[in-house]
């Protein structure tokens, strides 16, 4: 193992950190929004809608992310072409950027998990809290925004942030469709200089630093959010 090559690889890989974090963040935001929508669908009273959602969520959670990614990679251009032909959008699907396949597949997959987190967080707010708000004369909207949402958020946010670090790691599969993240960059380096161990070690260190730093920040956030649960009862 050559330390010279290792350092070179490290800095090359370090340069793709912003785009890896950015892409993961974009997916996280989209998936959180979609997950909230899924939560609402789940609460729907129509059994048919409920059943459809259950089938959908079972499929997305039951099939490996890798396969979702590949299915969207091959399937998305076909769907877009069909739509484009139907409505005369004139979109050329020959050079459809594979990043769209990553965004769509990762968002749908993550949303099906985040929906559970969101549902659980809203459920975790005790009925006593909601009842107190009603008894004080809050309207439905006030009750939601002043009592339910803040408490559910402080429950959900640490879990959603935790999911973010998972997403960063999951994004390593994107090299299969030639989207460049930290791992894909390492792989490109090995192809360029044929030195596997240096590049993979460098990537591992980059991931490690990222995860440790993010986890540290997120635990500070969590500590702050849970300040009211810290009982110092004498």
């Amino acid at each position, binding site marked *: 193992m050559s330390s010279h090559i290792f350092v070179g690889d490290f800095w090359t890989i370090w340069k793709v950190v912003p785009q890896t974090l950015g892409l993961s963040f974009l997916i996280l935001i989209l998936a959180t929004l979609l997950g909230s929508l899924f939560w609402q669908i789940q609460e729907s009273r129509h059994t048919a809608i409920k059943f459809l959602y259950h089938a959908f969520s079972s499929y997305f959670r039951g099939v490996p992310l890798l396969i979702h990614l590949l299915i969207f990679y091959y399937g998305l251009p076909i769907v877009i072409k069909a739509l484009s032909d139907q409505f005369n959008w004139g979109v050329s699907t020959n050079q459809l950027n594979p990043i769209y396949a990553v965004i769509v597949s990762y968002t749908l997959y993550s949303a099906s998990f985040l929906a559970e987190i969101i549902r659980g967080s809203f459920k975790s707010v005790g009925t006593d809290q909601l009842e*107190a708000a009603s008894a004080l004369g809050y309207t439905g909207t006030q009750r939601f925004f002043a009592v339910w949402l803040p408490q559910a958020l402080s429950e959900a946010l640490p879990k959603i942030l935790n999911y973010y670090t998972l997403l960063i790691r999951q994004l390593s599969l994107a090299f299969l469709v030639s989207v460049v993240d930290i791992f894909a960059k390492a792989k490109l380096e090995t192809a360029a200089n044929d030195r596997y161990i240096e590049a993979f070690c460098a990537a591992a260190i980059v991931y490690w630093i990222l995860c440790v730093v993010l986890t540290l920040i997120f635990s500070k956030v969590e500590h702050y959010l849970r300040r009211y649960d810290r009982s110092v009862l004498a």
Partner: protein
Amino acid sequence: MIEITNVHKQFNNRTVLNGINLHAETGNVVTLIGPSGTGKTTLLRCINLLEEPDQGTIEIDGVRVQIPIKNKNDILTLRRKTAMVFQQYNLFRNQTVLQNVVQPQVLVKRTNKQVAKQRAETFLQEVGMQDYQKYYPSQLSGGQQQRVSIARALALDPKVILFDEPTSALDPELSREVLNAIHKVADLGITIVLATHEMQFAEEISNQVVFMENGNVVEDGTPAEIFHHPANERTARFLENYRVRQAPIYSAQIKKFKVV
């Protein structure tokens, strides 16, 4: 003034309230007594429509709601005449003591935030909790939480405050401080409806006592009438049992079990 007429409520075909009628003048302190599971809590929750009765009419301070409710806005209008103090305090656990008293005023009464703060401080002072403004509920004892919850109710300037067994989750020493706070509320002249098992307290604070059993009002009168000359034989038997259970040594044991 509170006027409750013919209120019925069933849960899963089990009758909990079986045609309740109750009248209370403004400024009255009404205590509801009776065996556990007799519908006292349900009646309180029907008065502010946290539970919707199956039939009946509820009128508070000129707002009259008839079941079935036609206009959902009436629920809020009626509810805003009241405030409630819960058995388990139900303070907003993510808000400090001060926020717990300020936010309802701002949201429900549209009080200016500065004014709400001043009022909150006044009422916290009233219940002896002015030194705990920055604390979160989880950092307080049960009695302290309950006193904050009383301040929160007072701050809304309600016509009626409903107390749902406010001391039954507390140790005897902690109950005392809460009972003192309720005394202060009574002194302010606000109408009170209070469900309780503390007979001695009921006798000393109220000027109207309602004895309930199996979802019915059995007897309704002054403390002197109910506690010393009950007209109904069932009332007498209940109070008789209660006196036996309240015997000093035995009651100490009961309290101990509760703590465990």
